[in-house]
């Protein structure tokens, strides 16, 4: 939907995928996370005062945008060239590296995505998440990947041995690790190297193809906000490192969409 439509309606529909700390609903039904917090600020600036939050599976975010089930996604979805063909991205709002969730004590001694290329251990990924592309690029055979529908399933998947590890972003991993003492973040994690550079993702807001003006308006406000102390505080509040914050300025969406 265009910016005018949304302003006329006075309500914007924003989707999250229930991933802590990127975008999630807490028990009281309040939207939280890096995406929602920044989105709330921007909507305020744009004069849109009502936000309808929608929770959906990660895999349904892009189809939902295309089906006009919501106007915007605030899930810190990584900007990837093939996604750029389907939807519009704002400029990066964050940046994050990869991580690996393993069982307590790391019994299989796993420290890198590359471990799964040779060994017979299975690695879990979330349906629709970009870890699939990374693992594929590294040459991990498909039968060694277990697809789960939800971040929430990761702890039990790993702690019960249904998969040896869960490949996700470093923030997701440390968040999950903090919730249960049956799992931990793999220590001395080696960033996967794809196409000659360590894999790093740039998260952004996502829009449908016909919402260019809305995206541009968000971009303008985002650029302003990223220069403030408020943005940096939000980053660190949700566990992003200073490096993550710096990196988020180093690439533009245009560059990221053109790569690969």
């Amino acid at each position: 939907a265009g910016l005018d439509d949304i302003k006329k309606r006075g309500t914007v529909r924003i989707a999250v995928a229930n991933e802590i700390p990127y975008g999630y609903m807490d028990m009281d039904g309040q939207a939280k996370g890096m995406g929602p917090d920044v989105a709330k600020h921007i909507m305020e600036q744009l004069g849109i005062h009502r936000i309808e939050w929608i929770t959906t599976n990660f895999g349904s975010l892009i189809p939902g945008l295309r089906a006009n089930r919501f106007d915007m996604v605030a899930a810190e979805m990584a900007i990837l060239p093939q996604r750029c063909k389907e939807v519009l991205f704002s400029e990066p709002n964050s940046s994050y590296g990869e991580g690996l969730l393993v069982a307590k004590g790391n019994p299989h001694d796993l420290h890198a995505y590359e471990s799964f290329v040779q060994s017979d251990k299975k690695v879990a990924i979330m349906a629709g998440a970009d870890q699939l592309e990374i693992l594929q690029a590294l040459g991990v055979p498909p039968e060694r990947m277990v697809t789960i529908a939800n971040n929430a399933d990761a702890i039990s998947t790993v702690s019960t041995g249904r998969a040896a590890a869960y490949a996700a972003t470093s923030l997701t991993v440390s968040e999950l690790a903090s919730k249960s003492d049956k799992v931990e973040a793999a220590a001395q994690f080696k960033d996967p190297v794809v196409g000659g550079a360590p894999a790093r993702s740039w998260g952004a807001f996502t829009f449908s193809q016909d919402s260019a003006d809305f995206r541009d308006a968000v971009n303008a406000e985002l650029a302003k906000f990223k220069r403030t102390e408020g943005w940096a505080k939000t980053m660190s509040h949700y566990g992003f490192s200073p490096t993550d914050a710096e990196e988020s300025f180093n690439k533009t969406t245009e560059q990221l969409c053109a790569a690969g």
Partner: protein
Amino acid sequence: MNWSSYMPPLLEGAWVTVQLTVYSTILGAACAFAFGMGKVSGSRLARGVSVAFIEVFRGTSLLVQLFWLYFALPLLGQAVGVDLRLPPVVAGTLALALNIGAYGAEVVRGAIQAVPPAQHEAAKALDFTPRQILWRIALPQAIPEMMPSFGNLAIQNLKDTALVSLISLGDLAFRAEQIRNFTQDSVTIYTLLLFMYFGMALALTALMKLLESSVGRWRAGRS
């Protein structure tokens, strides 16, 4: 966290589940009568349409229907230039109603056909028209016959509403998943969830029994 703190969101979800069940059961009953009577009607077209409807919605899995309505239908709409993007509530209610309606149509058909041929003959001997026989003799006798099966279908429908959580509708199952995402307290949440569905099913059963006895009062003296 203890279980009592889960209750407010779960009750909210349960309310959504109740609404979904009620709306889709009512809509489903309408489908059931339309297509069930269509299947026994004299018109070949009505019969064909009814048979096709019943076979398609009984023959494919409910979850496939739900996903199809939610994910595939918008693309079909795009291809033909119509906006068929259904909001989750509509897609969910529709999928449940169509599915339960197809099963219900067979119940309606069965009950109408179970009215003894002798009743049709007696009515014909009294010179009623075929239309009068259907509306005055066959249907009033068939409806109490349908009630037990409708009761079972309503319970089935209540259970099936859990599937709409998979298209992000905030029903009971969905809210439970949300809480688990937060707390990872699977044991408490799923146990609560099972008993809440059980309780709703018991209430629904009691309601259907009440309805059943009120539509079939003339059968009371039957041995």
